């Protein structure tokens, strides 16, 4: 392994808001989407990243950042950043602008991340989870009094899932947006990507393309466009390597970020779905994700009210040659149940050495 390289593992923050003004609430409300770009810029400056491309539909705004992604829904914001970014510094300016500019109040907060490949390169407070939890506790309003932090383990010491969740209500239900209760979020982290497949995420020298058009080419070439053919994709290829995309499909986002360098290769895939979707949807999607990256190890975090989705995940990955090595479940305020599963490719050295 390289002594140091780019940290692919993201930090992810999801904030939910509510307000009395009906123009901000519900699917027709605009809420956080009315934040002016200067406010968003101020938040991103704190985090230390910039917007490289963006797109919107009637339901939400999706930004590809220099380090990962930002999604703005009327009452929900998701920021995901990799490298050595200062994600949690986004909280104070976001809460201030939501409150003063829009009259919106925070109702729940969820922070998740995997295990960093280069933990010593991280700035404070990301050096350890306890520090992050203290920082979060201090940044959040007292009204979010139901709080829980947990490190969900796996059998592989290099994989663990860190979850912090806080809510104004003592319930695991995602209140407020009743239609959200049926949704689930998948957060997938993949390491040790197949070397030949990872090469697809390097720019070709002298291709005279810009980051947008090179990204579009990678989306097609790698098969990423086929993961959800219905989604409109906003993509970007970094120079000399690396790739990011956001998918927008009605009121559902998806996102992929790739650090392809050998020694610390990493890819993440995140999407939302409904428990009422065709059961086969998630199976088809995961199969395509595996075909794009063929990682030696992958971890899947499923956040959902229902217990049904995570079994579909295992059912999808096992026929593709992955062995489930661990499974942990826990309940969190306003998030529901988080199930953290790790999988190892049976054909990889990891499997042969460690099992």
């Amino acid at each position, binding site marked *: 392994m390289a002594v140091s390289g780019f940290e692919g593992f993201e930090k992810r923050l999801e904030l939910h808001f509510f307000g009395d003004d009906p123009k901000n609430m519900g699917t027709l409300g*605009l809420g956080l*989407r*009315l*934040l*002016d*770009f200067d406010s*968003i810029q101020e938040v991103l400056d704190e985090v230390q990243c910039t*917007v490289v*491309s*963006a*797109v*919107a*539909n009637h339901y939400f*705004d*999706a*930004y590809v950042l220099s380090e990962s992604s930002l999604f*703005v829904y009327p009452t929900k914001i998701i920021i995901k950043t990799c490298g050595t970014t200062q994600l949690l510094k986004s909280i104070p300016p976001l809460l201030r602008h939501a409150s003063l500019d829009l009259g919106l109040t925070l109702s729940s907060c969820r922070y998740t991340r995997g295990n960093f490949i280069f933990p010593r390169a991280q700035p404070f407070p990301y050096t350890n989870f306890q520090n992050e939890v203290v920082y979060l506790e201090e940044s959040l309003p007292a009204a979010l009094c139901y709080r829980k932090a947990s490190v969900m383990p796996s059998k592989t010491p290099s994989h663990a899932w860190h979850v912090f969740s806080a809510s104004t209500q003592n319930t695991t239900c995602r209140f407020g947006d009743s239609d959200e209760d049926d949704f689930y979020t998948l957060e997938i982290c993949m390491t040790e990507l197949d070397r030949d497949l990872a090469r697809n995420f390097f720019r070709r020298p002298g291709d005279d393309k*810009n*980051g*947008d*058009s090179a990204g579009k080419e990678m989306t097609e070439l790698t098969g990423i466009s086929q993961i959800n053919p219905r989604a*409109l994709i*906003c993509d970007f290829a970094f120079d000399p390597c690396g790739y990011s995309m956001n998918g*927008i499909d009605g009121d559902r986002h998806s996102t992929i970020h790739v650090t392809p360098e050998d020694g610390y290769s990493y890819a993440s895939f995140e999407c939302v779905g409904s428990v009422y979707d065709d059961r086969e949807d998630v199976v088809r999607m995961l199969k395509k994700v595996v075909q794009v990256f063929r990682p030696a190890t992958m971890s899947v975090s499923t956040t959902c009210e229902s217990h049904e989705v995570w079994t579909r995940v295992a059912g999808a990955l096992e026929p593709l040659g992955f062995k489930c090595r661990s499974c942990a479940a826990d309940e969190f305020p306003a998030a529901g149940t988080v199930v953290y599963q790790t999988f190892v490719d049976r054909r990889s050295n990891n499997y042969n050495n460690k099992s």
Partner: protein
Amino acid sequence: MAAEEGQVVSCHTLDAWNEQLQKGNDSKKLMVIDFTASWCGPCRFIAPFLAELAKKLPNVIFVKVDVDELKSVAQDWAVEAMPTFMFLKEGKIVDKVVGAKKDELQQTIAKHVAAASASA
């Protein structure tokens, strides 16, 4: 017309839109149409950049259409995501950029401006 040079012209009515379209067709200039929405964050992100481009490129016509104000136009042009930039020459769509993508927008304009001066 001269007053509009160097600016992004907003069309708030169907008449204004048809007039701009006609002007664009007659002038044989490259026309860039920005389909935008008041609630679209990425549109606000790209707006200052588009205004800069318009200032720098007086030979290109920049038109802005709000998809809520001119719903039928957005539907006719099958605009589903915002911002969508349509590139028109003599009434024909020659290119399309979906999303707020600065480099792609700039390069696509450059490509068609170059093509125009090469054939002129």
